[in-house]
C-alpha cells in the first residue's frame, strides 16, 4: 500500500471508505465523549478568559478536550487498518506525543494548582551575588541561561496560569519535532531530504532538513493551538486543510497518507458538526497541538514542506499576528492589533463570532486551493 498510481480510482474509493467510517465512528463516539467530559467536569472556566463575557458567557461550562474525538478515532482506525511501520507510525506517534502534552495542559488548567512564579534573571543574578553558600552561588550562576530561556519564552505566553508553562511546552514540542526529523532523515532515506519546489524541481537540503522539520512541527502545532479560539474556527479550517492534503496525497499516489488524511477529514466532519456555535464541546490543547503536529508531519512527509504556509494559512496568519503583537508591544510599546491573535482583533472591531469564523474559513479555503494547485506542478 506504500504507493500506487497517481489519481488511482481504487485509492480514491478506499480513501472515501476510510473517510465515511471515520466520520460514522466519530459521530457515534461524540455523545459518549461529551458525557464523560461533563461527568468529570472537564469544562471551560471563566478564570483568566477575557472572552467569556456578554454573549460569550454561555461558553462557561462547555466541555473542552473535544479534540480527543479526532485523536482517538484517527489513532484507532490507523492502528487497525492503515498501520505501516514505514509511513504511518511516526505521524501517529508524533501526534500522540503532542496530544498528550496538550491533554496534560488542559487538565492542569482545570484541576491544577497555580504554578509558582518563575525566578527572573534579575532575581537569579541577585542570588549569585548575595547567597552565603558558594556552591549555591555557582549553581545559580550556571542556571542563568535557563532563567533567561524561561524569561524569554515567558514573554510569548499570555497568563501564567495553572497549565504547562511556555518553556516546558516548547521543550516537549521540540522532542516531538525531533522524533519526526529523526524518522524523515534516518528512516525514510535520502529522497526525503529534499524539498519540492513547485514548477522548479527539488532542492537537496541534507541535514538542514532536521532543524527545518523541528521548527515547522513546533510552529504549526502552536499555530493551530493559537487559532483554536472561536467555535468552529480551528475544526473547520483543519477540515479544509486535511481535505487538501488528502487530495494532494491522492494525486501523488501516496496511499498510506491518502488514507490517513481521509481518516482525519472524516473525524473532523463529526468534530466540526458538534463544534459549530453553540459548541457542544471545544477542541482543547489535546486536539489543537495533536492535529497541528499531524498537519506538519503529513505535509512534510508528502514532500509539500514549502506549501505548509498555504495548507495551514489561517493558522500561520494567526500565529504571525501574535508574533507581530509581541514584537510591537515589547519593542515599540504599542499594540499593532487591538488584540492578538487576529480573531480577537476582529472581535474588538465589532465582528460577531460567526462572521469571523466563516470569513476565515473562506480565506483559508482559497489558500488551500492555491496550495493544491501548486502541488500539481
Amino acid at each position, binding site marked *: 500500500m506504500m504507493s500506487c498510481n497517481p489519481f488511482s480510482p481504487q485509492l480514491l474509493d478506499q480513501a472515501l471508505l476510510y473517510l465515511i467510517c471515520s466520520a460514522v465512528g466519530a459521530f457515534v463516539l461524540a455523545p459518549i465523549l461529551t458525557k464523560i467530559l461533563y461527568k468529570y467536569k472537564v469544562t471551560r472556566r471563566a478564570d483568566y478568559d477575557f472572552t467569556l463575557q456578554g454573549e460569550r458567557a454561555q461558553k462557561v461550562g462547555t466541555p473542552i478536550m473535544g479534540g480527543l474525538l479526532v485523536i482517538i478515532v484517527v489513532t484507532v482506525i490507523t492502528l487497525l487498518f492503515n498501520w505501516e511501520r514505514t509511513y504511518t507510525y511516526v505521524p501517529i506517534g508524533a501526534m500522540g506525543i503532542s496530544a498528550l502534552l496538550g491533554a496534560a495542559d488542559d487538565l492542569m488548567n482545570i484541576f491544577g494548582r497555580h504554578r509558582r512564579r518563575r525566578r527572573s534573571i534579575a532575581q537569579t543574578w541577585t542570588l549569585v551575588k548575595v547567597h552565603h553558600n558558594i556552591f549555591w552561588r555557582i549553581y545559580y550562576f550556571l542556571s542563568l541561561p535557563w532563567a533567561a530561556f524561561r524569561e524569554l519564552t515567558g514573554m510569548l505566553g499570555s497568563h501564567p496560569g495553572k497549565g504547562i508553562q511556555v518553556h516546558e511546552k516548547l521543550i516537549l514540542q521540540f522532542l516531538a519535532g525531533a522524533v519526526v526529523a529523526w524518522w524523515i532523515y534516518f528512516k525514510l532515506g535520502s529522497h526525503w531530504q529534499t524539498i519540492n519546489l513547485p514548477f522548479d524541481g527539488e532542492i537537496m537540503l541534507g541535514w538542514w532538513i532536521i532543524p527545518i522539520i523541528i521548527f515547522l512541527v513546533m510552529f504549526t502545532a502552536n499555530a493551530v493551538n493559537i487559532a483554536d479560539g472561536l467555535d468552529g474556527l480551528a475544526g473547520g479550517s483543519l477540515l479544509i486543510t486535511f481535505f487538501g492534503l488528502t487530495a494532494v496525497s491522492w494525486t501523488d499516489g501516496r496511499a498510506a497518507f491518502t488514507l490517513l488524511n481521509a481518516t482525519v477529514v472524516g473525524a473532523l466532519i463529526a468534530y466540526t458538526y458538534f463544534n459549530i456555535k453553540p459548541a457542544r464541546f471545544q477542541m482543547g490543547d489535546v486536539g489543537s497541538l495533536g492535529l497541528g503536529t499531524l498537519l506538519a508531519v503529513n505535509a512534510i512527509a508528502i514532500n509539500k514542506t514549502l506549501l505548509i504556509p498555504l495548507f495551514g494559512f489561517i493558522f500561520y496568519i494567526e500565529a504571525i499576528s501574535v508574533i507581530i503583537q509581541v514584537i510591537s508591544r515589547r519593542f515599540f510599546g504599542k*499594540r499593532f492589533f487591538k488584540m492578538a491573535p487576529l480573531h480577537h482583533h476582529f472581535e474588538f472591531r465589532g465582528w460577531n463570532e460567526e462572521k469571523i469564523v466563516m470569513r476565515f474559513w473562506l480565506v483559508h479555503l482559497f489558500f488551500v486551493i492555491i496550495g493544491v494547485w501548486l502541488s500539481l506542478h
Partner: protein
Amino acid sequence: MLSPKAEKLINDYFNLPFKGLSNIRCPYFNNARRRGRGQLRALIGKGTPTEIVEEAKILSIQYHYDFFDFDGRCKLCGESKDANEITAQVRKFLIDNDLGIDCSGFAAHVLRAYFRETRNIDIFSRAFSWPVGTWIRRIIAKLRPAENLSVRVLANNKFSELISDGRKPFDYAQLKPGDILTMLETGPQNKRNHILIVEGIDAGKISYIHARAWSVEGQYGHGVSHGEIEILTPERSLLDQTWEELGKLNDTNETYLEAKNAKVFEVRRIKL
C-alpha cells in the same frame, strides 16, 4: 497658546476621548514604583490619550469590569447615573488599572505635537542622539522615544538650552510657549524630577500645564492640570511670584513647593 494640534492633544488629556463620555481628566501614573518593563507605553504612564482610552476599553473587556463594550461605549451611561458619578467611577477604574500619564510622558507628547506643527520637526526622530547613556540605551530610546524622554533628558544641555536659573530673576518677556520649567531632585526625599510646559504668556501671567499628583488630592484626585504664575514683581525670581493652581496659592500649591524644594530649578528651551 501652543499650536492648534498641541492644544487639541492637551484637550484630549483633559477630556479623554471616550465615546459618549466627557470630562474624564487623564490621571497621573508614574511607573517608578510599579517598574513595568517592556510594557505597552499606555500602561507605564507614557501613552497618548487615544492609547489610554483604547487600553481602558481592552482592560475592561479582558477583566470583566463591564465599563465598556466592544464598540468602546460606556455601559454605565445607560444606567441613569449622575454624570459626576460616572466620571468618578471611570477615573477610579483608570487609576486602579495603572492607566494615566506621568509628567515627562505628557511633556514628550505635547512638545512633539507642538514642534511637528510649528517647525515641522519630530523631536522623537532624533532619539538616537539623546543623552540617555550607552549605545544600547540609545537604540532603546530610538525604538521607544516617549518612554525615554525623561525629565533628565529634557533638562540636559544637549536637548535644551538654559534660559535662566529659576531662582534668579530674568526677563520674563523672552519666555515662549513650548519652553519648559524643569525641577530636578525634588519631592519629599529629593528623588523625583518634574517638568512643566509653558502654554502661554499673557498680561503678566505665565500659564503652564503638567501631569502631577498632589498629596492633598488623595488616591483618585490627581491628573493633568493647568496652573498660572502671576508675575507681580518682574525684578525678582520665579519663586518670588504668585503660583496658582486649583485655587491654591504658593505655600499651599504643591507644584510651587516642588519647584522650591528642587535642587535644580531651571527654565529651558528645546534645541531644534
